[in-house]
């Protein structure tokens, strides 16, 4: 081997893998290069000895005291999580999980209220409009379905090995639920198509593919396989879409609007999706 270049010796010092064995072999036979490497080692070792003044144990606290008055207030609303970056694990943090649960509960409550309204007798004009009532029930049911789908995906994203040594993660629970949701999803997608709600049908179609992906995965997956599933979920941005459409449906359910009379904001959000 020729004498390694200075660059290669520095890389060798840094522990880079490329051509390591050949360089080591050469160094053993070449006092000149060995001395050159020793000079590099010596320089970098000397530089390592430049002292850094110790800032003190309370340094972090001091930094906080200095910056905290300059931190702008961060406004927070319970619905913020719907509109933050979808490609972030923050989606799966407990607070957002709670938010998703709250929405699911809200949709469920609206569904129950809707049912009570429906059986409340003919005294209200709304109840007389059976078409509207049916649509409202459908809207709420789909909203609930999206909420449950979201929960499965969130839980899947939250699952992981209990410790670093764990080789397999059991996702059979999420799989069973994904299989159940698949049936419902197909029904709602067909209904949405029949009603001409192509935006909703499109989201349900995408959700179906994700649910299929989960349902067809092995019951025991390696952390790498699990990561692959997560990445496919994130790549499709399905959680974001499900949340936006779910919100739209929620608003429609609460306002009693039908798909033919969507609220302006809801429509624009779904169009964005």
């Amino acid at each position, binding site marked *: 081997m020729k004498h390694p270049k*200075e*660059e290669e010796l*520095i*890389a060798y010092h*840094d522990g880079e893998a490329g051509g390591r064995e050949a360089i080591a072999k050469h160094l053993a036979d070449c006092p000149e290069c060995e001395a050159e490497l*020793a*000079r*590099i*080692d*010596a*320089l*970098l*070792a*000397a*530089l*390592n*000895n*430049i*002292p*850094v*003044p110790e*800032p003190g144990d309370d*340094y*972090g*606290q001091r*930094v*906080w005291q*200095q*910056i*905290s008055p*300059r*931190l*702008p*207030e*961060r*406004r*927070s609303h319970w619905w*913020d999580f719907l509109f*933050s*970056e979808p*490609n*972030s*694990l*923050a989606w799966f*943090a*407990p*607070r*957002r999980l709670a938010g998703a649960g709250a929405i699911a509960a809200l949709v469920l409550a609206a569904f129950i209220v809707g049912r009570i309204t429906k059986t409340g007798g003919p005294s209200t004009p709304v109840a007389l409009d059976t078409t509207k009532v049916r649509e409202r029930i459908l809207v709420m049911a789909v909203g609930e379905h999206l909420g449950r789908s979201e929960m499965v995906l969130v839980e899947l994203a939250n699952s992981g090995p209990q410790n670093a040594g764990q080789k397999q993660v059991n996702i059979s629970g999420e799989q069973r639920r994904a299989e159940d949701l698949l049936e419902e999803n197909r029904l709602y997608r067909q209904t949405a198509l029949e009603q001409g709600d192509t935006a909703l049908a499109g989201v349900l179609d995408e959700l179906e593919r994700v649910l299929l992906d989960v349902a067809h995965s092995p019951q025991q997956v390696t952390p790498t396989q699990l990561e692959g599933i997560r990445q496919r979920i994130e790549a499709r941005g399905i959680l974001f879409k499900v949340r936006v459409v779910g919100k739209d449906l929620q608003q429609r359910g609460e306002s009693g609007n039908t798909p033919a009379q969507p609220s302006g904001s809801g429509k624009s959000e779904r169009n964005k999706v």
Partner: protein
Amino acid sequence: MNRMRPSVETFMETDAVAVEQTLAGDREAFRILVERHSRNVYRLAYRMTGNQHDAEEVVQEAFLRAYQKLSQFAARANFGTWVYRIAANYAIDRMRQRKSEDSNRALPARETEDGAEMDLMSTVPDAAPSPERLAQSGQLAVQMRIALRDLTPAERTAFVMRHWGGSGIEEIAAALNSSASAAKNTVFRSVQKLRKALEPFVEQRGRARVMGTEL
């Protein structure tokens, strides 16, 4: 009393959760991140800027920027690495600004093909080392600081991140906003310049040290 230090009770209070809570409006949660990572960022900042005043400013600015950009932080990433990179970026700006202020000539910074700033300041006369530094670290340390200061900001950042921060080439490339091969070249160039400036001072001592540590 370290109320905010991780303890058994707050074991689950990971950086990701603290980020999440901060994003949800809990400003106090950001305190955990500041207290946890300040010292590490300070070490980087001090080595990059070479003085305590600038280092402290870099630390503060890095956390302020991190707070402002927190919604862009991907929770999968490591908050420590992220804020470290923000600090490195700001320190580069600070060093460029400082060199510009120190320079008698208002020469614009020029970029080489690989994105690294050309060493326009190597001709600027060295300021006399402060008595504090001389007393603290001795003549050799002063020479090393001068040599480090004479690196371009990009070279200094690359060197500090690589040799003191243990950062990978990809991470350095991200901080320098350059390609991996350009970052690798910048690391190499920094070591080459330091060798040229310092080897006469450290050779004998260094040899002895290496012999001592290797045996």
